[in-house]
């Protein structure tokens, strides 16, 4: 269980600093099993902050969404820092962005929370269908304690965790300024089992599967907008001169979009699953990303988002990089 009181105190301390603009964390949602991002501009706002297994969102997307409004005469730009509350996986996104020089290390104050697993919103909705309003969720060892309208149940974590938590190797944030609680060592290993079993299928089966999935796509670009690592000022699909991907929505363009996005995230995707959660049509985007992650690991022995000093994978080369495709 995460010490929420300590979290609130640390946030209060952070926001009281002169050089911090705001801190973004989680607060209780408006209904059912929801937590929602919360912004604290003053110390009083910090009382709303919580951390429970419902806090599944990756908040690293917010420092990249900062808009810079045009300045009036004589006005100085606001260069204060932004505080972010992160779990283990989220911190890797921030580290990856720092690696790519998308963010300055000095511009963020990272409040890290060692995480023992969160709840997948789709799985819990299936488990508790109906009109759920008042919930309380806690976690204890390997079970979630869920109280709905007064009745409490203990459910094993394996049943409700998203897939990323089942193979999580970094429960403690890899980079932080403040840590709420003690460091947790990982007991799990990413074996890419799902990717391996999918690879065993025939080419025709795999292609049919993805065709069916991409037909559903409505090109809302929620996956791109919710992803913390998709922060290009002008995305390739918005370009008109030349137009790389047409605006029409059909199987061909949808396939192009999804595959192009997966490739643009090669060596950068840290597997937070935000894209899959944001997708309204339930397309299994993490399968694509995990496959590329596996290839990157095998070819280059590189894991994204671990070391902020490292150079980004596809922006450098080593003399002993694999070359079978050239020679």
């Amino acid at each position, binding site marked *: 269980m995460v010490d929420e009181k300590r979290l609130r105190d640390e946030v209060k301390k952070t926001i009281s600093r002169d050089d911090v603009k705001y801190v973004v964390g989680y607060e209780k949602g*408006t209904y059912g099993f929801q937590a*929602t991002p919360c*912004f604290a501009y003053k110390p009083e706002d910090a009382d709303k902050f919580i951390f429970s297994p419902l806090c599944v969102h990756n908040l690293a997307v917010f420092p990249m969404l900062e808009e810079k409004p045009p300045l009036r005469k004589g006005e100085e730009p606001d260069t204060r820092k932004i505080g972010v509350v992160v779990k283990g996986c989220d911190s890797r996104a921030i580290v990856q962005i720092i690696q790519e020089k998308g963010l300055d290390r000095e511009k963020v104050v990272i409040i890290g929370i060692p995480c023992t697993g969160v709840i997948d919103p789709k799985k819990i909705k299936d488990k508790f269908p109906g009109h759920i309003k008042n919930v309380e969720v806690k976690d204890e060892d390997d079970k979630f304690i869920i109280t709905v309208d007064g009745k409490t149940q203990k459910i094993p974590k394996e049943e409700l965790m998203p897939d990323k938590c089942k193979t999580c190797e970094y429960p403690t944030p890899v980079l932080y300024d403040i840590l709420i609680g003690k460091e947790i060592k990982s007991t799990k290993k990413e074996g890419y089992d799902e990717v391996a079993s999918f690879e065993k299928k025939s080419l025709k089966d795999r292609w049919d599967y993805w065709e069916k999935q991409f037909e559903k796509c409505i090109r*809302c670009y929620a996956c791109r907008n919710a992803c913390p690592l998709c922060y290009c000022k002008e995305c390739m699909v*918005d370009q008109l001169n030349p137009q790389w991907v*047409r605006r029409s*929505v059909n199987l061909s363009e949808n396939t192009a979009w999804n595959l192009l996005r997966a490739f643009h995230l090669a060596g950068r995707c840290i597997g937070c699953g935000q894209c899959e959660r944001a997708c309204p*049509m339930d397309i299994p985007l993490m399968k694509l990303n995990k496959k590329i992650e596996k290839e990157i690991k095998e070819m280059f022995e590189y894991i994204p988002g671990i070391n902020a000093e490292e150079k980004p994978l596809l922006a450098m080369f080593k003399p002993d990089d694999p070359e079978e495709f050239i020679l």
Partner: protein
Amino acid sequence: MDKMILSKSDFPKVITEIIKKNNVYAPVKNNDTIIFDQIKKPSEMNLDFCNSKVPPKKLLFHQTETLFKFTPGTKAKIESVDINENNVIFGIRPCDAKSLAILDHAFQGDFEDPYFLKRRKNTILIGLSCNKPELNCFCTSFDDSPASSKYVDILFTDIGDKYYVEIKNDKGKQLTKNISNLLKPATENDTKKRKEVEQKAINMISRHQKTEGIAYKLDKIFENPYWKKVAFKCVGCGTCTYLCPTCHCFDIQDETTLTKGARVRVWDTCMNPEYTLQASGYNPRPARTNRVRNRVYHKYNYYPKNYDVIACVGCGRCIDLCPVNIDIIDVVTRAGEVKP
């Protein structure tokens, strides 16, 4: 209005008959997601759902619509595209049917949109009342009911082992001409049962949005910092606009190969930063605050000012699917309480 009864065992025969002369669209299950798609047999339908992911506006206002074809370059010719379909949408919920009536206003007016309106004229709506509304349904906040027959041509209500069928107009009568032998007149008991089902559904709706005088109130709080608080969470994903049954913004693009081209109309979202970006580089809505505020105002202030109806039907899709839990019920109810 004719009130009839159809037993559930005869129901597939009705659908088979309608399929003979029309394109029939009904809810189907595609990998755990319910969407409206064309069916060839009644067994392809899946009626165990609350509402489809993508609203049925997609069937009338296609996501990608070819406006006309042309030969690109400086010596061009144009070729028009014709629309000739007879459609029947089965299983549309009353809220989505209302949304089509709301969209009519936008597509009519001084200039009539031939694509949407032609399809609308040639489409017959067979509604299906909701027996079990979900948590985020709030159609009752707009004086509507989950079993309303106001905007459909025929309404089916599930009252146990039979369907209560209300045929509202000539279009509906024409469609059911060939199977009228399967329909029996409703008894008083049946009508009572139908009222009970409707009341039960209305009682299940637990969330309400305060919409009294909202257009007037919103006029006063345009510059209020409340909108910054609401919009700060938004990541600009656009899910709410793509799945909203009353959103109608679109983009027009020319798509060409070397020898031929077409001008297409595609859905667009006002949440996109480039939505109002002008060629000079100036953007009147540069921040998420402006765009989120514009969306709420479009639904609850601009549309009522132009057409006298709030452009929200209470389907709850935006609430269910927003990845950061921006809740329109909450946003508008609190806007009503903000001190100007």
